[in-house]
């Protein structure tokens, strides 16, 4: 295996494009190194992107936030503006692994690892976040949900990698929230998870919503029916019931060591309801 630490994104992309063997991007490494330890991956090339200028920065702009691909999740929670604007996104990113893992892991890595249970992804999907993909030829943007192709698979092309995640500007009277279910209080992979992002009008009626579910299908799901169930409501009991039903209906989970189909299907609805309540309150709804 070769280890390189290029100074520019273009250089990194070129190295990735040229490699004939198995090439991996190293940001936090908290997934890659585990796979290497288990013998599941034997890279020929590891491109450490952390020396790329600006890739460890969080930038606030008029159009929102640009979060460099190598920003460790622990840094997200330390950025007061980000926490204020996107508490649900930060909640999701702050639940990955332990404090130790938080010091290393990145949202970009969490996304590109393409686990259906990735904690930071539902929040990003609900927020309508985009990724910036860089290749030797230039860059393009893609909605976060469009990055995911399946378990462990992304739609990234060879030689292309995520350099940043863009979060839109927080709308007035909006709020987001993320909840996951784990058997313990920490350290587990989500058995099922849900993020809700919604906006209300001056009367407390939901005008916009995005609902994303994790660990209930081969990728994180953006559930339009769930959003539709609460748009136009004040998140009353009927709306919540419809939301729960829509979320459970959208689930296509599996039985595995972490949970059963029945459990995931049922708890997806429970979490959606609870996350929606939190998001609604954060938006200023009563």
């Amino acid at each position, binding site marked *: *295996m*070769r*280890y390189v*630490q290029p100074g520019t994104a273009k250089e990194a992309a070129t190295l990735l494009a040229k490699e004939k063997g198995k090439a991996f991007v*190293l940001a*936090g*490494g*908290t997934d890659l*190194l*585990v796979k*290497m*330890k*288990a013998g599941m991956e034997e*890279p020929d090339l*590891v491109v*450490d992107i*952390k020396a790329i200028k600006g890739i460890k920065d969080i930038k606030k702009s008029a159009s929102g936030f640009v979060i460099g691909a190598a920003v*460790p999740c*622990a840094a997200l929670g330390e950025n007061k503006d980000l926490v204020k604007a996107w508490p649900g996104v930060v909640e999701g990113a702050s639940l990955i*692994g*332990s*404090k*130790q*893992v938080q*010091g*290393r892991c990145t949202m970009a890595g969490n996304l590109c690892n393409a686990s259906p249970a990735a904690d930071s992804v539902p929040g990003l999907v609900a927020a309508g976040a985009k990724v910036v993909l860089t290749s030797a030829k230039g860059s393009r943007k893609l909605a976060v949900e469009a990055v995911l192709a399946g378990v462990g698979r992304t739609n990234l092309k060879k030689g292309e990698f995520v350099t940043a995640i863009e979060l839109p500007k927080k709308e007035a009277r909006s709020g987001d929230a993320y909840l996951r279910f784990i058997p313990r*209080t*920490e*350290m587990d992979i989500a058995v099922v998870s849900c993020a809700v992002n919604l906006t209300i009008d001056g009367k407390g009626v939901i005008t916009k919503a995005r609902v994303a579910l994790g660990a209930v299908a081969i990728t994180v799901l953006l559930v339009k029916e769930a959003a539709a169930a609460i748009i136009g409501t004040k998140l009353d009991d009927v709306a919540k019931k419809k939301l729960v039903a829509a979320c459970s209906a959208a689930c296509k989970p599996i039985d595995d060591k972490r949970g059963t189909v029945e459990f995931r299907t049922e708890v997806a609805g429970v979490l959606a309801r609870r996350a929606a309540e939190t998001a609604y309150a954060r938006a200023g709804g009563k």
Partner: protein
Amino acid sequence: MGVHVKTTVNGDEVEFTCAEDEVLLDVLRNRLGLTGAKEGCGTGDCGACSVILDGRLVCSCLVLGAEMQGKKVETIEGMAVGQKLHPLQQHFIDGAALQCGVCTPGFLMAADALLRKNPNPTEEEIRFGLAGNLCRCTGYDKIVRAVQAAAKEMRG
């Protein structure tokens, strides 16, 4: 073959050559003779290999040695100053916060990282701050109490 790295460990400049895929934990243990960090799992799930890297608590099993160029690493071996134990170390002994002791270096690093950020944590903040470190002997009771006692002493 191999990567040559210059880095700072516990304030000392060190140089080593390691394999490209070698993790920091193995570098510390096998190349630098610092066996205080332990491998309990090798997958970031137990915290026994915790060290502080550029001010952030990390599992040294999930960091490559090759990434260490120009970094600052703090390990359990650097926690005491001369003969003077860190208050956390002293309270772990006085409060019987260790039984077998194999998780202790990791807990001390995690507790140190916690108290640097939050000198007056609640019980809940301590418990979540240490949730990445597994202990199988103590039920965590005396560990949490030792951290509380050390924090109190350090606040003066």
